[in-house]
């Protein structure tokens, strides 16, 4: 006589969840890294996109002082006003990326419409910093000319249209891929270990000898791994909410929770499949973590997928996490449901496929 399936599912669910909760080291090891990562991003956020430079103003004439003011107001640098000697020292001690010098005859030259170079000495360690300076100084120069209004010799102006209703800071932007990474990592690792452990410790024998149905065993295991993963994802989302980084509004809370649930379900299914196939915790951990990182980075990581080469964008189109990150971005940052149907469909299909694989793998493992 087989036991009540609901009781079996509940028993397996409670058992696996208890094991997970009681292993505090494992819990800390799973939760700490994404939180530390978010903290690091927040700490470094102020410096992003604003290079430290030393500004030497040798010209005290009106145009020189105006240029100095423009550099300060442009908000593209973290400026230290310095004398030439101080500036050289700052450059030598790697405190600044560049020294910008407004020469002594700047006003004279500008008034005479003669060539008036602003000297820039750059510590060109790598193209990222160097190009930031190469972009930022001309930006300040165009602002200088724009300040002249209709008298400006620069007639080409920029008319900007933003696709999104608001700018999102880099550290805020990176919260959502971090949540998706956490969901994938936790789902894969937790469920694969929970599955593999049953074989490694031979407790699968007791389970099979019991009147518990096999479907109930599988569902119980998937449910417990899904619950722990989903709760972790919600926890980080709530933390982001409390810090003011990720604040979904109204119905988009439900959308966000739905996406988190789908990603958690997909990663859990995959993890169960791996755990049941490999049946050893050590290799399963290593493979799960590798797979999680590969999926994460091929979906664009914390970058913007549109910036990547076409071959990588094409690969990302086949990675379900791409759709998870997109849906979360739309819901949380823009309160929009742009392509939500597509994202939910892809994630749902992938979650079903992953669960199917998980069930098949468990059944085969049990049968063998």
């Amino acid at each position, binding site marked *: 006589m087989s036991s009540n399936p609901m009781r079996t599912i509940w028993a397996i669910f409670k058992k696996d969840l208890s094991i997970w909760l009681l292993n505090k080291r494992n819990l800390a090891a799973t939760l700490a890294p994404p939180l530390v990562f978010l903290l690091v991003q927040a700490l470094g956020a102020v410096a992003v996109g604003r290079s430290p430079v030393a500004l030497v103003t040798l010209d005290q004439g009106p145009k020189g002082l105006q240029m100095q003011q423009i550099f300060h107001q442009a908000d593209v640098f973290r400026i230290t006003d310095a004398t030439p000697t101080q500036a050289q020292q700052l450059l030598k001690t790697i405190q600044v990326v560049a020294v910008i010098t407004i020469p002594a005859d700047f006003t004279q030259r500008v008034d005479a419409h003669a060539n008036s170079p602003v000297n820039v000495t*750059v510590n*060109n360690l790598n193209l990222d910093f160097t190009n930031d300076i190469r972009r930022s100084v001309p930006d300040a120069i165009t602002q200088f000319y724009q300040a002249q209004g209709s008298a400006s010799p620069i007639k080409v102006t920029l008319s900007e249209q933003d696709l999104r209703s608001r700018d999102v800071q880099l550290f805020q932007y990176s919260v959502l891929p971090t949540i998706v990474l956490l969901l994938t990592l936790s789902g894969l690792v937790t469920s694969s270990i929970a599955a593999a452990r049953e074989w490694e410790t031979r407790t699968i024998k007791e389970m099979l000898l019991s009147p518990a149905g096999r479907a109930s065993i599988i569902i119980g295991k998937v449910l417990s791994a899904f619950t722990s993963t989903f709760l972790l994802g919600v926890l980080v989302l709530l933390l982001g909410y409390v810090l003011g980084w990720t604040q979904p509004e109204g119905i988009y809370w439900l959308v966000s929770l739905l996406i988190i649930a789908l990603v958690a379900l997909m990663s859990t299914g995959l993890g169960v499949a791996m755990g049941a196939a490999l049946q050893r915790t050590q290799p399963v951990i290593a493979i799960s973590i590798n797979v999680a990182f590969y999926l994460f980075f091929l979906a664009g990581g914390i970058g913007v997928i549109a910036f990547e080469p076409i071959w990588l964008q094409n690969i990302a189109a086949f990675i379900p996490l791409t759709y998870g990150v997109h849906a979360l971005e739309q819901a949380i940052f823009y309160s929009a449901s742009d392509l939500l149907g597509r994202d939910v469909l892809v994630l749902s299909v992938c979650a079903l496929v992953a669960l199917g694989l998980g069930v098949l793998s468990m059944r085969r493992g049990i049968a063998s």
Partner: protein
Amino acid sequence: MIQRMLYNGRVIWACMKKDIKSALTERVFTIISVFLPLNFLILLSLFVVSGGLAPTAVVMQDTGPYAQQFYNAMAHAHSFALQRDSASQAEQLITAGRIVAVVTIPPDFDARIQSNQPVQVNVKINNLNTDFTNDIRRAVPLSITTFYAKAFPNVVSITTSEHDFYQQDTGYIPYLTVSILVIALVMSGLLQAGTASAREWENATMKELMLSPASRWAIVIGKMLGSFALSLIAVVVVLAVLIFIIGVYPVHWGEVIGFTALTMLIFIAWGTLLGTLIKQSQAFIALAFGTALPLFFLSGAFGPISFNTQAIQVIAQIFPVYYAIVLQQHAFHNFTLNTYGLGTNILVLCAYALGLVILAAIVLRRSTVAN
């Protein structure tokens, strides 16, 4: 005294051999952990494979000479990966998230420029995050000043006169892959050593070791040497890919070998210490992987730490990863990333290595069979 030394030498040799043999019984895990640093190199390089160029469609509604010059100015702005498209194609691409900006040069661009009238260039930006968006926002003014410098050098007199510290620019990939090499060394060392230590506790084989007359530090050194041997394979693979496939040739080969060995030693010691403290391989592996990413961002991987915020500067200098990155950047590119001097950076790493080995031995000594 000499007998004691010989005995300790035998213990070290035995522990080393045992750990290598144990690792070889877990073939899947060992193979994965050998190739893991290479995976990190590949994956983290994906961050920068775009080279920081914003994929941008340019809609040339005017194809006159000034419009062409403006397009060329944009192409040389170090900021765009340009493609010419029609308005509808560009709109499709930006909506599909394939490009990040559409620049439209209006049909009367040339006429207005010639008659010295204002002309607006429309720029539609997929402003997903401010870091990328600001790069584009600044690159367009750069294109404007470059355009005027070529087309009307007497009109816009204020220009930039640039002098570079180093003779040639170093691409972002050659720079960043050296920093990624260090993180790969960290992962390799931590994983090999930490799991070997944690496994001893999980399998309770540590009991036999602790009940034996072998000294704790000899056990620790033996285990570390075993992990070192296994990590060496991973490191050789990563260095080979970095040098011969990615093409980043070191300026100082001796420094590369020396600093790599020193970095491996530190993180093998650290892994041994953590594995002994945590005593669970599952938790340890999750922690090792999970701390690699934050460490990577925290330790000046993208540039000198002095360019970052004060908080990050202070935190970074607590960890040996920072000093390892500084030294490897010097070894590969002859860059100086801090003012401590080569000697001081090396001394700091040596102090870390010694400190961690001693600490690992102390922790093992204080662990009891009851643990």
